[in-house]
């Protein structure tokens, strides 16, 4: 039993934390968020140079062979910096899914560009009405000679606003809309005729898009993996995403906790630092308790991210539920303890609060994962 980071992870942690400290102060972050792109392509290139974009890919694919533990370390630092660049969307979710399903040729084609930062992906899976249910896919892919015709809608595709390619799931078979069998995954260029991308910002300052496609034709070679067989991989990549998001949340919580304690130490009311008021002290302690346990759950999530399916899913649901609840407590308490100042857009507190809130929604909220976990107890 060993909860210590290994050497590679410690190295990664140091470089990531140093990067955040040096290149990602809050004001710079805000100006990047306000730019047209919503993040910095220059920073993305930095990520490439630091080797982060290749982190989870096999060495034969040009990557570094890292796993959930390494991504965890990186994402925790990204959480501390409220990083805007689409690492979760392009690398953790789509990149890993692509690498898992794609054949040698497809990978040779795309992975180098993904790793060198010249190309970005987004995962288009959820649909209006599917909520957090992964099996529910209504989009259809009809086989048509040597091509497929895709029709359907995809909801709130993370970083869907500026991806070069989408991974679009669509049904090539299966009994009805909620069969895990019959779901296929396609690589679709953003500029494909028949694809409409409606982009927007999200509440946390990131961006996403809704996709609509009608009789969108893709070549057979756009299919990733066997037809109808993508579900298991999609589920797996959602779990990778959960582990990564949880680590990002942990980073957010660290800053919120630290900022709040400092505020309590310095802000004075009634002629005394407000941190002398016992009720506020205990609220800060509750934050500390949530934070400490969140770290443990983030470790657990990373450790279980490659376990056998049932064990993996239960552990990841437990982690996502815990992190969701802890994040809510941290965000709400930090706001409350900061008083009016916590409501202001100018301070970082409200932005960490918002990011923790949207993290809870992404990939299934705390209540969804409570239900998943609860059902796993049967």
């Amino acid at each position, binding site marked *: 039993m060993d909860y210590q980071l290994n050497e590679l992870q410690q190295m990664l942690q140091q470089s990531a934390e140093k990067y955040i400290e040096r290149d990602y102060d809050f004001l710079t972050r805000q100006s990047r968020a306000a730019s047209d792109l919503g993040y910095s392509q220059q920073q993305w290139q930095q990520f490439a140079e630091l080797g982060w974009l290749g982190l989870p890919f096999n060495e034969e694919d040009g990557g570094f062979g890292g796993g959930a533990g390494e991504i965890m370390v990186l994402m925790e630092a990204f959480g501390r910096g409220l990083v805007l660049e689409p690492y979760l969307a392009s690398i953790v979710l789509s990149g890993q899914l692509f690498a898992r399903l794609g054949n040698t040729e497809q990978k040779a084609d795309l992975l180098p560009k993904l790793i060198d930062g010249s190309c970005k992906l987004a995962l288009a899976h959820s649909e209006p009405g599917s909520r957090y249910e992964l099996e529910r896919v209504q989009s259809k892919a009809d086989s048509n000679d040597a091509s497929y015709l895709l029709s359907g809608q995809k909801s709130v595709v993370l970083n869907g606003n500026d991806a070069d390619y989408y991974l679009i799931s669509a049904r090539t078979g299966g009994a009805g809309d909620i069969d895990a069998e019959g779901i296929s995954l396609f690589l679709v260029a953003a500029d494909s005729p028949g694809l409409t991308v409606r982009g927007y910002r999200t509440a946390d300052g990131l961006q996403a898009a809704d996709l609509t496609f009608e009789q969108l034709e893709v070549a057979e070679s756009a299919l990733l993996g066997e037809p109808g067989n993508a579900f298991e991989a999609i589920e797996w990549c959602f779990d990778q995403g959960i582990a990564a998001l949880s680590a990002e949340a942990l980073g957010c919580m660290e800053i919120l906790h630290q900022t709040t304690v400092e505020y309590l130490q310095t802000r004075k009311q009634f002629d005394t630092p407000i941190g002398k008021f016992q009720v506020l002290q205990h609220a800060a302690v509750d934050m500390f308790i949530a934070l400490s346990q969140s770290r443990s759950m983030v470790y657990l999530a990373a450790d279980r991210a490659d376990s056998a399916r049932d064990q993996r899913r239960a552990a990841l649901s437990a982690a996502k539920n815990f992190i969701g609840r802890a994040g809510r407590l941290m965000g709400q308490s930090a706001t409350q303890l900061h008083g009016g100042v916590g*409501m202001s857009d100018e301070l970082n507190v*409200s932005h960490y*609060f918002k990011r923790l809130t949207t993290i809870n929604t992404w990939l299934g909220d705390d209540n969804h994962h409570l239900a998943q976990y609860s059902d796993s107890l049967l």
Partner: protein
Amino acid sequence: MQLDFTPEEEAFRLEVREFIEAEYPQPLRDKMNAGAAPNKQDYVTWQQILHRKGWIAPRWPEQYGGTGWSPTQSYIFDEEISAAQTPRVMPFGLTMLGPVLLSFGSEDQKQQYLPAILDSTTWWCQGYSEPDAGSDLASLKTQAVDKGDHYLVNGSKIWTTYAHYADKMFCLVRTSSEGRKQQGISFVLLDMNDPGVEVAPIITNNGLHTVNQVFLKDVKVPKENLVGEEGAGWTIAKYLLGHERTVIAGVAASKQQMKRLKTIAEQETQQGQPLWQDNRFRDRVAEVSIDLLALEQTNMRVLSDESAGRGPGPEASLLKIRGTEIQQMITELLAEAVGYYGLPYHKEVLLSGWGETEPVGPDYAAPLLPHYFDWRKSSIYGGSNEIQKNIIAKAVLGL
């Protein structure tokens, strides 16, 4: 004991409802139903409609433009207004300054200010909080130096709601630094157009501009703008805090939001069924609904005590705490209900609804998460809930 409303009270409710049905302008109604934030003109439009009917100041004495309603009637009126989702009546002139002038103002001040409050031609804002005096209001530092016929005011106010709409501000200032810090506070009126008044917007976590910081630099406030005695500011502020406590529970508005929550959850789908069919979700709503019922009954019991001539008992103090907690829970459930479609942020929709634009996701989704963020303020302002509990501990429990 007869907890239902009397037939007379129900008839009054109908009268109010019919009035709103007839007079609430459709474009404004559409905008409000879309969850958009009303602007200055929207507020004024609706207030002037109420004013023309004579219903703008239910709790003022009749001779000054009040309605002569019983507390129960006022409560029913609030319920109907909330159910119709009209813009709320801005409290600064009507429920804050008005009663203060009526109790503490000179006859001149009443003559000068009350009519323009009633017809909404003057927009007031409240100058209480300061950057270094939030929950500890009495430590405020804005100085008013006696210059004979006027005070020279210097300092800064913060979190000033709609200062950028306001014509005038009522304001707590320090006229003396002797004695207990509560003693040197005075209550004055100033003009937002006066030289030296500067309004700086504060954007809050929903991305919108509602509150401000107001800088006061050598602002001249004529002595006749002092309300009550010099040094009576704290007494007036406390009077206001105790005033209208039955309104702050926000029960009517929360009931309206609960209806909205149900409507939305009936439209959202989960596992191919309406979300509302899911026990897991609905049970959480049910618990808040029961809490709201308990708050409503407590609110009405306090009202009933008032009507029976027993002034609001200590129970009134808890209404703000529970009222805001429940409001916050409802905003949370609303955002939860729409899942991923809570995430997109459309500032223009928050200001004016989708209008002709095709919505992203369901048309009701866009304002929900920003509302959730925004409502965190309710447990902070008006005396944070922690402060409220301190007050109950001391004043009610003797601790």
